[in-house]
């Protein structure tokens, strides 16, 4: 069987599956019917925050710590200092960074290498990765990355064992719906939500840190 054979199977299967669906529910749907039906979905859950921004930031820090991440809140001028301290505290030195990461966040005396499409094996040789972020969700302790300047492609925040992420306080929202609203305009970009370091609960339902993704996570919250 070759690729033409798959194409043939797929084409006839497509027609058959759509026919079965229409038969099963008794009719063909279209864009108008779908739009009307969708807008009738009752959404009485929280879609906006009911708390002050300061409470949201506190909640975000609290939830991150719950995941065993280190968090430090600093003003913009102190970011580089906090970064230096965190990287030193982890005993790391050689970090990969995406292009477009603000130069003023990078402390002197450490090695920051800009990703130019390195192989996974090359990425594996770094001590860690440092990035910015798109949006963060306080209620779930989540940071969202997209393939954009200062965040880069997905592999760089995956292969190295340590991730240092700078989150702008203005990007922190309380709830998931608020975050999805902010992401909508760029929903086509490769998007990664991370909530704490890589973890598993597959052994006796005990959450343990660190399986395949970065095992250690530090967050600099820039206010």
């Amino acid at each position: 069987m070759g690729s033409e054979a798959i194409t043939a199977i797929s084409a006839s299967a497509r027609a058959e599956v759509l026919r079965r669906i229409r038969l099963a529910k008794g009719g063909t749907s279209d864009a108008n019917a779908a739009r009307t039906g969708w807008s009738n979905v009752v959404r009485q859950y929280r879609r906006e925050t009911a708390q002050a921004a300061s409470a949201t930031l506190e909640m975000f820090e609290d939830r991150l710590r719950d995941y065993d991440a280190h968090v430090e809140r600093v003003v913009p001028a102190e970011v580089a200092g906090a970064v230096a301290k965190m990287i030193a505290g982890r005993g790391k030195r050689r970090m990969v960074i995406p292009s477009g990461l603000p130069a003023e966040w990078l402390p002197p005396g450490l090695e920051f290498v800009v990703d130019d499409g390195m192989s996974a094996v090359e990425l594996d040789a770094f001590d860690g990765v440092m990035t910015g972020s798109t949006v963060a969700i306080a209620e779930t302790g989540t940071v969202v990355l997209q393939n954009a300047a200062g965040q880069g492609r997905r592999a760089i925040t995956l292969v190295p064992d340590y991730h240092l992420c700078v989150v702008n306080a203005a990007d922190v929202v309380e709830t998931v719906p608020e975050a999805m609203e902010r992401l909508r305009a760029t929903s086509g970009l490769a998007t990664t939500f991370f909530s704490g370091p890589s973890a598993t609960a597959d052994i006796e339902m005990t959450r343990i840190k660190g399986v395949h993704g970065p095992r250690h996570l530090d967050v600099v919250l820039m206010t």
Partner: protein
Amino acid sequence: MSGVALDPKTAAAFPIAARTALGDTQMRKNVRHATEVIQAKRARVVAEMPDWQQLREAGKQIRQHTMEHLDYYLQEFEANCTRAGGVVHWARDAEEARRIVVELVKASGSDEVIKIKSMTTEEIQLNAALERAGVHAYETDLAELIIQLGEDQPSHIVVPALHKNRQQIREIFKRRMNLPELGETPQDLADAARMFLREKFLRVKTGVSGANFLIAETGGVCIVESEGNGRMCLTLPETLITIAGIDKVVPRFEDLEVLLQLLPRSATGERMNPYNSIWTGVREGDGPQTFHVVLMDNARTEILADKDGRNTLNCIRCGACLNVCPVYRQTGGQAYGSVYAGPIGAILTPQLQEMHHAESLPFASSLCGACYEVCPVKINIPEVLIHLRGKVVQQKTAGVSGLFDVEAVAMKAMGMIFKSERRFRAAQRLGRMSETPLVRKDGQGVGWISWLPGMLGGWTQVRDLQEMPKETFRDWWEKRGKHGK
């Protein structure tokens, strides 16, 4: 999968498999412990959501709406995914899906694949098909790795190795990873898996995944996971093949705001699972440059055609109904003879298969309703169970063979008796007379029957039956009336 696959066509009926499972005290202890932990975690994170019921209602409505417009949303997904550089394939059944995936893997030029945990690939027994075609599949989810290396079968849709404890896992890893010195803390075991799989992540050029959600509006795919093995499989290979049931589509990106709240809290009792990935087609310089999606029916349209069973398709595979189920918690998952176990398995499996392959499953429930309470999209599982029980009985009693079905004949006779007061009283008298030789008195003088003949023996196999009262309520009432009290 290495061992004998869980296949409803060949599996023992639930009562027989359950009897064997109940004898495995270690497995029962492991399942009890794990489901207790996960239930407590879920309860805690659900309780902190003031709008949980509103989210459930929205989740239910979104899923229902999707099924009503499934043809439209699948085509919309196809168009948008294709525009973004993905290739969409369709498969009527498991056989077609396997052929397509095997062919796509071969075309990728690789004789090995790395896999993300996927119930859909378990459902179609993809790994065995790949092996037959000379392709080795590495399971990369920790639990699936435990299952694969242990030549075992999954017992839970979210935590497939929930029936194994740390000592058992350590034994499997020691043997299969050649690590005689391996410790037994969960951390040791996770580290061993990291070492074992990292080399494969960095080397293998083709990935195979399932999907949690296909987003019609954008053509994107969303996968929810914990360990980062998913991200590895989605990001590092050159070719990615995603296989998804047609029920996995959601209308819009925005709908994830509901589902991404319901799923992690229900599945693992976390506010959010460690990683969610959303990608759309292919993007130069980021992730696989060849991306295929296989949309598979495999009897989902038959479920859609059954108005009373249709809401089974709303399932988002969180597994919360397994963890609360008093039957699952006793037997574990493998007794269900299907990759889909527990309450959702009891309604999904018979509908995905021809009913006669899994006709004991709709009866594997006490109808207590705990599954409905925790379901994040409000699937009324007890109602569907009763509907399916009705179908099983209908099938058994249909046609000429139904005339010889003992249970059906007995039920008809019961119907006759219940219809007439005279016959009902006569039957009661007959019952009291005929039970006499079977009754044994206990110390308090209460009569018990510990053995009943024929089909009635099903009751006394596991419990005693109290003898019938000497006087019925009706008799007592009438007597009382006569004496004018």
